[in-house]
């Protein structure tokens, strides 16, 4: 069944936490008794409220006030101690990295001894994937947010400006600020910027061609790690 109730989320939360007036409750009940979407939402929210009312602190071990979990996640990014990747890409990427290194080595061995080809070899090295960030990019690093979209997609080729975008679906009052960090494949931090909107465009001081990794963070969690190729036009 389609539900076109515009304030469904507010009504469900308000109903379960008893913030609606008697009239609002009756109106919403008249609706959800016939609406499978709202009825499901009410049931799930009621179940959550029931669990929290009975046993909240034990169920929610990492509620704010004990931000150890989020801090640990951030330490993972900057402390260079990634958790082992859980997907099959952890086997694919070391192999890919080894193959890429072999290609670079071949280029170095067989390249003619002129300056232009030396430069090409250095540039080729900039495209070697960095395993630590590759791992992070394959993990689901965010926790709470739903319906997120990030751009560019992993593996995209950018050849002009670098435009990083994200959409969290959070209310505007909740969605700020983000910190964006850009790394090259040697884990050098190329840029760090705090952004209150949902995009960052780099026009000037563009980095040399290569593979780049970007991390999107809030004050308490690592939201996203992505990667892209940057090739000068």
């Amino acid at each position: 069944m389609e539900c076109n109730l515009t304030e469904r989320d507010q009504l469900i939360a308000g109903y379960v936490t008893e913030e609606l007036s008697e009239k609002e409750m009756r109106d919403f009940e008249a609706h959800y008794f016939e609406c499978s979407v709202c009825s499901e939402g009410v049931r799930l929210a009621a179940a959550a409220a029931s669990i929290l009312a009975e046993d909240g602190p034990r169920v929610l071990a990492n509620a704010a006030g004990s931000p150890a979990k989020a801090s640990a996640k951030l330490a993972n990014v900057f402390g260079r101690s990634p958790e082992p990747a859980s997907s099959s890409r952890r086997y694919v990427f070391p192999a890919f990295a080894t193959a890429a290194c072999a290609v670079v080595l071949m280029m170095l061995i067989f390249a003619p001894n002129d300056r232009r080809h030396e430069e090409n070899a250095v540039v080729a090295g900039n495209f070697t994937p960095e395993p630590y960030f590759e791992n992070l990019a394959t993990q689901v690093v965010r926790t709470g947010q739903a319906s997120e979209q990030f751009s560019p997609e992993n593996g995209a080729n950018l050849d002009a400006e670098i435009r990083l975008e994200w959409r969290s679906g959070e209310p505007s009052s909740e969605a700020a600020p983000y910190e964006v960090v850009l790394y090259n494949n040697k884990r050098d931090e190329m840029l760090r910027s705090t952004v209150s909107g949902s995009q960052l465009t780099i026009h000037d001081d563009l980095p040399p061609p290569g593979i780049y990794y970007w991390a999107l963070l809030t004050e308490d969690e690592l939201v996203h790690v992505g990667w892209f190729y940057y090739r000068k036009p």
Partner: protein
Amino acid sequence: MNDSKLLSQRIAAGDSLAEHELFRKYDGEIETMVRIRMRHAVSEQDREDVVAEIRHAVLVSLRKGAFDPQAGRTVGAYIAGIAANTIGQFFRKRERGEKFVTGLDGEPESDSRSPLAELLDKECRQELSHCLNKLKPKYQQVLLLRIYEGKSIEEISHQLGIKPRRVSERIHYAFKLFVKICRKRDLFSI
């Protein structure tokens, strides 16, 4: 005419099978509503009695043909209204110190567990707890303060140093995320 309105007409005509069909459709909503509206200081037995009384009142009303399918009101809305009145009656009687007596006289028993009761089973409870733990700490925090500690929006606002409107928004968004996470995990498919 939709299925529910046809059901109500069959009940008015004395079709007992239609009564079972009606409750198969609305039992979950009735039980959820009772659990939400009667969350505080009410025993499980009292809740069960109220659910039984709502079923009884709905049947008596529909059998008498009191529901008018042409009046523009849905059967669900009609049942929700009866349920709200029955719950209100329970609390008024309790205030007066009177016993809440159900008028059951051999009406159809509920033949299945409600979806909410199934959600609160031990195994499903673990899944739901897992989904709650997927929320960011700031969302978990407002849920704990509001639901477990029973604090008002103003008290939470004061404690966290944010505007009351933001507390409400955070609670709304926390539930929205929770429902989305549950749906993603196919925990409770429509």
